[in-house]
């Protein structure tokens, strides 16, 4: 079992946003999370990654059987949780290669693995850049600074590929991607899929799920998972919108 979320309640400054989430992700699975704006998808992703401003008020989260909520964000990263941000953050003056190598080596160190020197890292980075068809020049540019929207998203997937997580959480990685980029990103994610890892894919569009085929689709509404199903659920949502589900949920 990779992820077990039980009755998770979380909020910010006294306002509850997640109102009792239950979700179990097994190794080898891809779960899609859909839901209207403001329903709490990014909040869920943030709570899993350890964003400090959210307060967990109830429930528990186990990551490979361990209490995830007790770990600091960097410990979670080291344990193999990766979040591809909906809004990747700019870090002026710090080049992408140095940034990612610092992260990778911190993670390796905490696992008792040997750190990669600049040359070995470059080799690894080059290989992973190909996966998302990004130019090597990005390694020398400041993290996310001046990147186009689509480039930022691809850069997230590139980082994910380098860090090779156990659980990859993608928060709307498809938003802002053109059709080709969507395919490239999806292919990148697919190539990372293995029997011993899992992905949680937050998206508004079924389009992405044509490429990254999910095992389960969940609908998040007002902080609760109101419906779960197979990949057909995404198609149904695309055709009907959230109205029917919203009505059903309020009854």
């Amino acid at each position, binding site marked *: 079992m990779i992820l077990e979320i039980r009755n998770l309640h979380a909020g910010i400054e006294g306002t509850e946003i997640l109102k009792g989430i239950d979700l179990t992700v097994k190794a080898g699975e891809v779960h899609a999370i859909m839901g209207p704006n403001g329903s709490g998808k990014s909040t869920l992703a943030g709570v899993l990654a350890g964003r400090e401003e959210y307060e967990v008020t109830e429930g528990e989260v186990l990551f490979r059987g361990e209490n995830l909520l007790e770990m600091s964000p960097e410990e979670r990263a080291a344990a193999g949780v*990766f979040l591809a941000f909906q809004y990747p953050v700019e870090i002026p003056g710090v080049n992408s290669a140095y940034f990612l190598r610092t992260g990778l080596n911190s993670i390796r160190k905490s696992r008792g693995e040997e750190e990669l020197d600049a040359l070995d890292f470059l080799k690894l980075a080059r290989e992973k850049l190909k996966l998302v068809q990004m130019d090597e020049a990005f390694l020398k540019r400041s993290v996310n600074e001046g990147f186009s929207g689509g480039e930022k998203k691809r850069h997230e997937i590139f980082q994910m590929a380098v860090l090779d997580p156990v659980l990859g959480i993608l928060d709307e990685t498809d938003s802002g991607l053109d059709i080709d980029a969507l395919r490239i990103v999806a292919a990148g994610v697919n190539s990372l899929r293995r029997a011993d890892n899992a992905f949680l894919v937050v998206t508004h569009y079924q389009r992405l799920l044509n490429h990254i085929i999910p095992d389960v689709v969940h609908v998040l509404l007002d902080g609760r998972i109101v419906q779960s199903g197979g990949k057909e659920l995404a198609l149904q949502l695309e055709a009907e919108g959230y109205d029917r589900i919203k009505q059903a949920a309020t009854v």
Partner: protein
Amino acid sequence: MDAATKTIEEFAGQEYKYGFVTEVDSDVVPPGLDESVIRLISEKKEEPSWLTQWRLRAYRHWRTMAEPRWPKVHFPKIDYQAISYYAAPKKKSEGPKSLEEVDPEILATYEKLGIPLKEQEVLAGVAVDAVFDSVSVATTFREKLSELGIIFCSFSEAVKEHPDLVREYLGSVVPYTDNFFASLNSAVFSDGSFCYVPKGVQCPMELSTYFRINAANTGQFERTLLIADEGASVSYLEGCTAPMRDENQLHAAVVELVALAGAKIKYSTVQNWYPGDASGRGGIYNFVTKRGACRGEASKISWTQVETGSAITWKYPSCILQGDGSIGEFYSVAVANSRQQADTGTKMIHIGKGTRSTIVSKGISAGYGQNSYRGLVRITPKATGSRNFTQCDSMLLGDKCGAHTFPYIEVQNDSSQVEHEASTSKIGEDQIFYCNQRGISTEDAVSLIVNGFCKEVLAELPMEFAVEAQKLLGISLEGSVG
């Protein structure tokens, strides 16, 4: 108080690893200042009478002056009679100065500071003048440099061996009447470094002075004079540390640079004097006057400073751009953490035609630190077709610190251009979280983000020192965000 602010507060718990004291026998003049003390210092240094007279003129002028109170810094009144104006480690023997003669305790001190003075161990390509309290204790690579006609020695030796050069240039950039602290320095300066690079010679190695304050209750008043003759070039670096003491200590130095036609001087400082403890007790008052004159056509002076230490920093390395087409640059990183106060910046005085200047200032404030940029760009009527570009960025860590900018711009002709850009940013929780999510600890994240913020300035430092400065920035902000 949210978690991030709290952790930012914890950031003030910094460690200063150069705070040890060396046990040496010192020759210390009792505290107090009057004409007899100045005569005594001059006598101890066996100075010619013109220099004694110059000191006395400076002293008499100083007595008519008052401490400047315009900088945005606060400190209790300094009792100038409580300071000892001369401290020198006792020499084991007389005679020509060589490394064998330097007290092993002192050599060990520099070793501990990461500045080995034995030439075979020294960083390849760096010559060092080590100033311990009031005197220069060792200068490395002198012979090699002298083959090229480059003079690199302590100020005292220069007075003895190259009096004409000293007499010609001393006070020619910073006159003894310049300001309160410069006048005081002119009266009591004890030692420092002297460098002369002859016509057309490109100095093949970095020259550096390493300043160490050791003795208690002393002030350090060193003087550096650097002359690059026509077409010469030199890169010079100074580093500074001091023991941790509860009292404040005064450091009032003067640096004068002279660049003749076509000469280039690059002057870099990594200042890490003891900043005081987290509550603001102790630390160095760093009141320094640094100025360079681009005397000749197409000459260039470039200041780079990384100021992480001192309780109070008050300094404005400046350029007087006299020669047509001359260039002045100022790249600065100043950190004010805990209770540190920094009021620093530059003056660019454009006098020659077509002169250019660039100012890049990065101020970092953390804890209760107060950081001010103060800069003057003056383009005089004759300096037609001149340009200045100023970029002045501040970064705040936490919400108890402050950043202030005081840019003064005076353009007195129509054909010149001045550009000023300024920004203030808070180190973002988003940035830190993004780093955390990639496995980087908060401490490393702060160091990474701050170093990124300072990148343009660090890039100006010679390679070996850039690495050192990066580490220092990390250390001086350790614990600010946690």
